[in-house]
């Protein structure tokens, strides 16, 4: 056997396939149980590293904190794809070459005496009522089959899975995905560098959107239970020629423009603008983006460094002084400013327009606006994955709902000899055989 043939035969052996399923199962279990890089903040991993360096070293070495992008997981997926691909090829070849079952050995036949001779046409009609169709007819043996499509069920199901994996690998290789936080009035340049978070495929180096996006207005509505009722962003798309188009982006209703899909993220909140004026007259303007709370009675909170200073701003912001609203009314901010790690230099309630003197620096609470999280995706065609999902569901239904059944009937006078076989649920098929025999003997 040639080495390549041997390799493919090995990766399609049932025990090897089961091992692949077990390994994928274990990988997914590890990914679910061990904190993953994308799900936790970098400080979480720093803390972990300090607390238990040995465990962290092993986890990091084995890439268990980034299972789904690890080299070993991708290798596993690749082997699964090869295994599926070759298994499909073999199944198709086997099914095309497949001949009807050879008549079974004499000892395996069951016999019934119908007392009278049943005409062959009548027998065929009877079997058709049982949804068995004549497949082969020789002088003395009739071969019937039911659910012949089942022989292709495995091929259909596995080709669906194959397409899904191919689509996933294409995605991993070529995807372009970026997240950006845009304030009302602000323009996102669409340049690779200006994304807050980027997620690029292995073969992608940059993600330049090719147009600018300005956020005009962000809208948020809530149910009486404080759950989000609706969120949307009214944006203007500014193309290379400076032409603008106004569009609204809703959840479940992305904006599609120039091959790019823009999705509304669930990350949004208020942006507080501060201006710091130093004694020498130089100014720094910064915006703090605060995350939304899950209850209207809770504040929007944030803890961030003030750029170009040693100050850390800890903020609890209520859009309304009633402390019972998500919407801007009479806003109030509880602000703590800490210098270095734990040296408080300011603490108090402030409202927009207030100016605080912090160690000789004048810090003005300049304004409030909304910010909205937008997800940009360079949409490569997902139809391969969709087709894969559809095909695999059809395939699974064929495999498990329509088991293949085959029945041989031979007639000598009033004596009928029967032999049946199936590829699934054998005890249930045996019961069906008994019923058919019973009905035939009363025919």
């Amino acid at each position, binding site marked *: 056997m040639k080495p390549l043939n041997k390799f493919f035969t090995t990766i399609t052996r049932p025990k090897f396939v089961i091992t692949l399923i077990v390994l994928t199962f274990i990988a*997914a279990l590890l990914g679910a149980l061990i904190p993953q890089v994308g799900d936790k903040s970098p400080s979480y991993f720093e803390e972990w590293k300090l607390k238990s360096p040995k465990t962290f070293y092993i986890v990091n070495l084995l890439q268990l904190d980034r299972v789904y992008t690890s080299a070993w997981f991708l290798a596993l997926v690749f082997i699964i794809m090869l295994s599926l691909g070759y298994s499909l090829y073999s199944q198709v070849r086997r099914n095309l070459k497949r001949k009807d079952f050879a008549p079974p050995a004499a000892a395996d036949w069951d016999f019934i005496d119908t007392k009278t001779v049943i005409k062959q046409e009548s027998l065929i009609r009877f079997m058709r009522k049982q949804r068995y169709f004549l497949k082969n007819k020789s002088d003395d043996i009739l071969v019937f089959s039911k659910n012949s499509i089942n022989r292709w069920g495995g091929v259909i199901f596995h080709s669906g899975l194959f397409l899904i994996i191919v689509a996933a690998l294409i995605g991993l290789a070529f995807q372009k995905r970026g997240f950006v936080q845009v304030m009302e009035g602000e323009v996102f340049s669409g340049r690779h560098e200006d994304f807050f978070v980027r997620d690029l495929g292995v073969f992608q180096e940059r993600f330049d959107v090719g147009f600018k996006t300005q956020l005009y207005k962000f809208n948020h509505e809530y149910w009486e239970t404080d*759950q989000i009722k609706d969120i949307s962003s009214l944006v203007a798309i500014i193309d290379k020629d400076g032409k603008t188009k106004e569009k609204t982006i809703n*959840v*479940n209703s992305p904006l599609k423009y120039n091959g790019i899909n823009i999705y509304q993220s*669930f990350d949004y909140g208020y942006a507080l603008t501060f201006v710091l004026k130093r004694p020498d007259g130089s100014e720094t303007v910064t915006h703090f983006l605060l995350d939304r709370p899950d209850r209207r009675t809770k504040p929007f909170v944030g803890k961030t460094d003030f750029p170009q200073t040693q100050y850390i701003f800890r903020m609890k912001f209520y859009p309304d002084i009633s402390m019972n609203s998500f919407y801007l009314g009479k806003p109030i901010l509880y602000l703590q400013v800490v210098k270095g790690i734990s040296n408080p230099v300011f603490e108090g309630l402030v409202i927009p327009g207030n100016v605080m003197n912090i160690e000789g620096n004048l810090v003005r609470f300049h304004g409030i606006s909304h910010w909205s999280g937008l997800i940009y995706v360079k949409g490569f065609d997902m139809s391969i994955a969709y087709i894969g*999902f559809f095909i695999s*569901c059809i395939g*699974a239904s064929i495999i498990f709902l329509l088991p293949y059944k085959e029945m041989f009937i031979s007639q000598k006078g009033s004596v009928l000899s029967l032999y049946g076989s199936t590829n699934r649920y054998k005890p249930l098929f045996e019961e069906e055989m008994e019923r058919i025999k019973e009905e035939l003997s009363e025919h």
Partner: protein
Amino acid sequence: MNIELQIIFNWIAIGFYIVSTVFFAYSVSFQKEKALRPAMAIALLGLIPHAIAIVIRWQMTGHGPYMAKYEVLSSNAWITVLLFVIAAWKIPRLRPAGVIVMPLSFLMMAFGLFMNPEIRRLPPSLRSIWLVIHVTFNKLAAGAIIIALGTSVLYLLKEKRQEKDFYKRLPSLDVLDAYSYKFIGFGFIFWSITIAAGAIWANEAWGRYWGWDPIETWSLITWLLYGLYLHARYFLKWQGRKAAWLMVMCFVFSVLTIFIIPFVVESLHSEYFR
């Protein structure tokens, strides 16, 4: 008023299911086959007040029964009982599995009532036709899995007490085993469609069809376990006790995925089970 009415109907349904369970238990414990018929009839009757409670809730919330523990558990129980009644009506020998299916169903309902009967509204991400497909097939999968659990447990019981009269009247071990296989097959199909619909919907909402969200991952883990079961049966010829215990394990993972993980981890899916 509507809330009270809906809770009353729920308790009436639970009452029916408890009585039905008593009949099933009596039938199985004392080998009284005749008790199976009233047990089935009472389970069927219980579906009516249960359906009324679900419809009232639907009217109150303006959305289907897929938000909050109460709605999820109650509708899952309804689908399970309905699937069981249909299956046991078509295949009368499956009826003793009611001794497993009915208590699981009313326990799900009661658990939901005690946990969180308050109304939860639909967030914008859940306002999609894909939600209906995703959730419906997930409930069907849960129902099929519970019935498969019932037949597997009956298998394990019968295997130990084959000599007793009642167990002799149950389907043979081979047939019980085959039904477990068949219902796992149904569960696998429904679970696959659940994942597929969820993935397509995720792509509509967030621009990616798989994001390794904790519930997504656990759903995949469960699906792989079912795949393992089906492959082990087909290729390694696992059957009987081995397969029945693997089925019990599949059930544990399904419960973990649907009901426990949303409690424990932050996930895009947690919203439905708050």
